[in-house]
């Protein structure tokens, strides 16, 4: 039993195992008794579909077994370790897991991977799919299963790592993960440019992508993810790398922004840069409480079309958009007609996930089921034959 952990209100019983063996035993018993189980890390991105479970597993006790091999640029990290803590430890040797989800320090590594979380630097680094190389999980029979190895290239058996990433605890509970790592950049520098229209910001983003520049982040923001009074669309660019690389890129970027239609642009000092990124991740502190968001992915070519559609329907739009990845996060208000929203996104070939206060069913959270849902249901049954892991909480009611 743990105190003050988000898992406490979700189930009739909460257990905090400290070893994988403990967890496996607990899950074996739960499977035998057909008790439903919800795994909870930091509870930062939990979706329970409003359900109560028989048993909550607080994974934050699974913190043994951290192992970093700087010479291999790989690390094994226990699932219950806070991502922030893992990053701090890895930084001692100048490396990091290049994932930067919004996180006040509570998110666990296992939770971040189970929910496939990401942040602005996804522009350059991609997602967990590009960095996880091995996993240990406990499956629905209470068995400890390993996949992958601490090598950066591997085609030995099925890559089950991919199946676990983003599976939200519905096929197994992750107990440790191995990552390919990235060197921490020696220098980072943030630029902000302000535009009157989203088209101008998108045009400049496209110019930047064609220029000899390799930004670590490139995103467009509006509304609550800028300053409260900002009327403009922000284009934020983060450069990273070696001293000489960043210096050369600064020059190119400055020329590009100067030649764009920006109302103004600047290279941010450290304080401003920290503020911009804090605002992008968490929204500005003065904005009204957030009702919800929609996470949208779409073919990159549709960015302009998407923005036009959204602005037409929602003139006070708050949004952050990664043009090079075809991703956007859009604010949803209580009065937003979500079905209209879904229709618009579907028109441009996009997919959508709502994360709003009042949503408590998978069909509302993921209104359009992905192709292949029938296969996903078969996989769920195969790996969790008793159906104990967070049943009815994921897309398609998995």
């Amino acid at each position, binding site marked *: 039993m743990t105190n003050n952990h988000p898992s406490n209100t979700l189930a009739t019983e909460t257990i905090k195992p400290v070893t994988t063996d403990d967890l496996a035993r607990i899950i074996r018993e739960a499977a035998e008794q057909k008790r439903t189980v919800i795994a909870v890390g930091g509870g930062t991105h939990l979706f329970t579909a409003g359900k109560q479970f028989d048993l909550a597993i607080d994974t934050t006790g699974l913190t043994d077994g951290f192992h970093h091999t*700087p010479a291999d640029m790989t690390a094994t990290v226990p699932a219950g370790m806070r991502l922030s803590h893992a990053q701090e430890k890895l930084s001692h040797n100048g490396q990091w897991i290049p994932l930067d989800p919004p996180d006040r320090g509570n998110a666990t590594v296992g939770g971040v991977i189970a929910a496939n979380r990401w942040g602005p630097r996804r522009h350059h680094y991609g997602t967990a799919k590009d960095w996880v190389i091995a996993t240990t999980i406990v499956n629905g029979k209470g068995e400890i299963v390993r996949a992958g190895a*601490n090598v950066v290239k591997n085609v030995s058996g099925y890559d089950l790592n991919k199946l676990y990433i983003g599976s939200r605890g519905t096929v197994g509970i992750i107990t440790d993960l191995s990552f390919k790592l990235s060197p921490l950049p020696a220098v980072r520098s943030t630029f902000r440019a302000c535009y009157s229209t989203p088209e101008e910001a998108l045009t400049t983003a496209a110019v930047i992508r064609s220029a000899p520049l390799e930004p670590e982040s490139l995103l467009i923001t509006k509304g609550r993810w800028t300053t409260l009074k900002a009327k403009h669309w922000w284009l934020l660019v983060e450069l990273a790398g070696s001293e000489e690389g960043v210096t050369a890129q600064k020059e190119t970027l400055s020329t590009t922004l100067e030649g764009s239609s920006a109302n103004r642009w600047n290279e941010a000092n450290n304080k401003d840069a920290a503020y911009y990124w804090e605002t992008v991740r968490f929204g500005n502190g003065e904005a009204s409480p957030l009702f919800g968001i929609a996470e949208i992915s779409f073919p990159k070519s549709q960015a302009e079309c998407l923005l036009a559609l959204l602005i037409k329907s929602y003139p006070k739009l708050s949004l952050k958009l990664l043009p090079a990845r075809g991703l956007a996060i859009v604010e949803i208000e209580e009065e937003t007609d979500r079905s209209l929203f879904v229709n618009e996104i579907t028109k441009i070939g996009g997919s959508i996930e709502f994360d709003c206060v009042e949503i408590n069913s998978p069909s509302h959270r993921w209104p359009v089921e992905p192709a292949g849902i029938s296969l996903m249901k078969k996989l769920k049954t195969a790996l969790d034959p008793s159906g104990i892991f967070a049943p009815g909480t994921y897309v398609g009611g998995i």
Partner: protein
Amino acid sequence: MEVKTALIRDLESLLGKERVISHPTELLVYECDGLTLSRHGADAVVLPESTEEVSRIVKCCQGHQVPFLARGSGTGLSGGAVAAEGGVIVQMSRMATIIEIDYDDEVAVVQPGVINLHLSEATRPDGYHYAPDPSSQKACTIGGNVAENAGGPHTLKYGVTANHILGMTVVMPDGEIINMGGRHESILGYDLVGLFVGSEGTLGIVTEIIVKLTRNPESSKTFLASFNTVEAASNSVSSIIAAGIIPAALELIDALVIQAVESHLKAGFPQDVAAILLIEIEGLNATLSAQAGEIRNICHTHGATDFKEAKSEPERAQLWRGRKEAIGALGKVTPAFYTNDGVVPRSKLPEILEFDIETGKRNGLQVAHLCHAGDGNIHPIILYDHENETETKAAMKTSREILQRCIDLGGALSGEHGIGTEKLTSFSFMFNKTDEAQMMAVRSALSPSGKLNPSKIFPTGAKCGESKIRKTVAGGGWL
């Protein structure tokens, strides 16, 4: 015989006689892939031209309860594209169209029979390429690359096939046609694309693939570093990685391979050295000089006797030709060779290379190296005489010992070739019964009849005994 005749009759009625190969002589070419050691006869080879035809073929095979599998160019090196239990090979060579190239979405939509290099050739003039570049890229298909999660020299920087596939159309083992993923990065639900890539054609037959296109780098530099010992070369590799430098490619080639290459290809490799590193860095002009300097310093610290840069594009192309065609050159200096695809954590590179050579010696054989060293994918090549049964057995023994050592060092059985039929007996080095059962549960869920590409990957239930081990021929293929 009755069953077989009825099967072929049904296949012919689906596709016409000209697209069903069933004459024993014509079937001979499909008995093996790049792994020539073991051969398995198919009952028929069919040549579909559409997803719907593949679906009908699959339903026909299921109706007759015969095994079936897809095959691309047959360049694989693990015996993955052979009919291990007989049955029907679905040959994808007539589904070889680049359906669409879309630079706005930065994707291409291709049929599985498209040759890997053709896609990069089609897009490079427009500033893009398809990043996975297995050495067989002149011949291998993207469908085959998807099945084996193919790598290549430049995957060190850009990632393997799995990192470049966004969506697929798949004919499932019951004939159902399923689309997964799409033209964008969304993962809604489980990552089916991620699961299917590298599943060695055991979960479904891919009939259309949406791949990411990668922008060409602003510039690149290619270097050749020479060393008097393999150890010095491999220590340099480990140090480059440890310094946080990620070259686009970092290849180690030892003296045996160098000699073969220079005898037959004249790539410009120095002949009086123990090993060379072929190093390529790509990226922004502004960053390459400093990176090059750092790499040069590391190589010299480890005793490099020479470090030179390719001065022109033809010179660079010649060096890469030497690397990518090295295995063919090696085939000219040894009666046969056996390739191993083990992987180790990169800091273990010096240790495993020494072990490979010692193990070869102990078993009376020479071991050459053509490593994707930056990835830890070591590719020892065991030279032997296929006419000599003792040597053939010694080659197999050497390879197994090396794989066991890779696992002991925390590595993996295969970096880019897959398990196929070849490594069935080594599977347990890396995975215990529970790990295997988890994977087999996935397979059973998606392929309950087990008729799709059986006796691959998983030792449990595999009918290895039925393989026709014939006198081997000089091995071909690419690494």
